[in-house]
């Protein structure tokens, strides 16, 4: 592992889909730790994830991941070796077993060959799926598939881990286990978790970024978000904070 002070540095990022502007001048700096990404549907969470995962190239703006500029091509391959990405909806080869699926991504991520077998089993174990490791993916439930996806994301011990709605489909107990895993991973990696489940953020994240219409309208700790709660609706302080900040952003 290389020492990196800023894992993710986004400056004035703009991404457009045909007519709609998905990200509109976003600035964001992230270091090690677990960061929550909140926002209503269409706020640009998934778009930001895809840009950071180097899947799509932004229209304009600077994006530096692990000290490599990912809008160009020179450092792209080195950066990608140290990335982990779990998309919101990820496809899979139904006939692969969990092990083959994770092994496949270990190869694609160019994990050194002598480390692949151990890395694959370790990733599956950390995702809590070791007892189903030789099951075919098409026979797994939604929550187990999600965990297989988490296993492939962490198989290369990434320094930047991007998880888009990772708790969708997990039952409450699995979500608690997952938050525990997040805390362990966040010790020396930068983990960015996008979610619309506010309580996940409150439980697992050191800080929260709230997106609204392609911009960051809030950045702070979950407690600070909860403190903004006056005038918001919701069942918990942080939910009230979330709705209050969004309401302020809409009326601004």
């Amino acid at each position, binding site marked *: 592992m290389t020492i990196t002070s800023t894992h993710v540095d986004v400056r004035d990022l703009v991404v457009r889909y045909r007519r709609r502007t998905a990200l509109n001048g976003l600035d964001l700096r992230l270091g090690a730790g677990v960061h929550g990404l909140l926002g209503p*549907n269409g706020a640009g969470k998934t778009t930001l994830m895809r840009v950071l995962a180097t899947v799509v190239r932004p229209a304009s703006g600077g994006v530096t991941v692990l000290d490599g500029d990912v809008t160009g091509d020179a450092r*792209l391959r080195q950066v990608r070796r140290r*990335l982990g990405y*779990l998309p919101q909806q990820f496809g899979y080869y139904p006939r692969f077993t969990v092990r083959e699926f994770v092994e496949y991504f270990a190869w*694609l991520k160019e994990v050194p060959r002598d480390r692949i*077998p151990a890395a*694959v089993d370790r990733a*599956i174990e950390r995702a809590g799926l070791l007892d189903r490791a030789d099951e075919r993916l098409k026979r797994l439930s939604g929550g187990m598939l999600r965990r297989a996806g988490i296993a492939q994301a962490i198989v290369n011990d990434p320094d930047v881990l991007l998880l888009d709605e990772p708790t969708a489909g997990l039952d409450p107990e699995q979500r608690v286990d997952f938050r525990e895993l997040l805390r362990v991973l966040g010790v020396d990696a930068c983990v960015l978790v996008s979610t619309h489940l506010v309580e996940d953020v409150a439980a697992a994240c050191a800080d929260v970024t709230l997106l609204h219409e392609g911009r960051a309208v809030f950045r702070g700790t979950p407690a600070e978000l909860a403190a903004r709660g006056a005038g918001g609706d919701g069942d918990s302080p942080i939910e009230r904070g979330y709705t209050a900040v969004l309401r302020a952003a809409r009326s601004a």
Partner: protein
Amino acid sequence: MSWHVPEATLRAYSDGRAGDADAWSVEAHLVECERCRHAVGGPSTDAIVSAARPAALPPQGRVRRAGRWRGAVLLTASGPAARTAWLVAAVVVLALAVAMDTTWESRGFAWLTLVAPLLPVAGVATAYGSGLDEPGEIVASTPAGGLRLLLWRTLAVLAVSVPAALLAGVWAGSPAVWLLPALGLTAVTLAVGSVTGLGPAAVAVGLGWAAAVAGPSVGEHASGPLLAPDAVTVWIPLTLAAAATVVLNQHRFAHLRRPSREA
């Protein structure tokens, strides 16, 4: 030992409710006192003891030894064109072409010649970044993503469709005049695809090939000039130029073209 931990404190300790100071003194006492150790021994102690024991791990799995061969197999055998469905589709198309050729021989139009070079073109069109490659989104974020994986998968496509078409040709008794066009059109698809995306490129190449083959055969000749023996002088430079274009444009495969799904 004359002093023992009061039962209430002991219960608080074993439930994890005791304060730090209490817990320390209880633990210090438990080390010395067997009677209190037994008193603590509730279900939670069993849990602690079993947690301290080495976990009964499931048997070590079957992750293959990570040799070069295994890597090549995984990289080639994962694309959409390595699926049974693709193979079945290729065989059906070839069988239909052969059937048409043998049934309407008098027309002098070679369906197999039309279809055989387009099989790898269709395979390449779906090989990378298409909707048929289910985990394409994750694949595109890996260092192997982009042209490297596309070329591995193109290799797989050719390895399946060319022998299949050769067998069909042997069965139909027609010469494999389409072999060079197959390689050439595949290369052209990749080259055009580096600019327009692989899907549109495959459609354009397919239409162009159909025009080149079907056009002349409407008249007198059974096969067009592009299939004549001396067409080698066309195909080899064309293939090389296409390959050079692909190498020069390789950065264009680095990101997914379509910012398809919104969210």
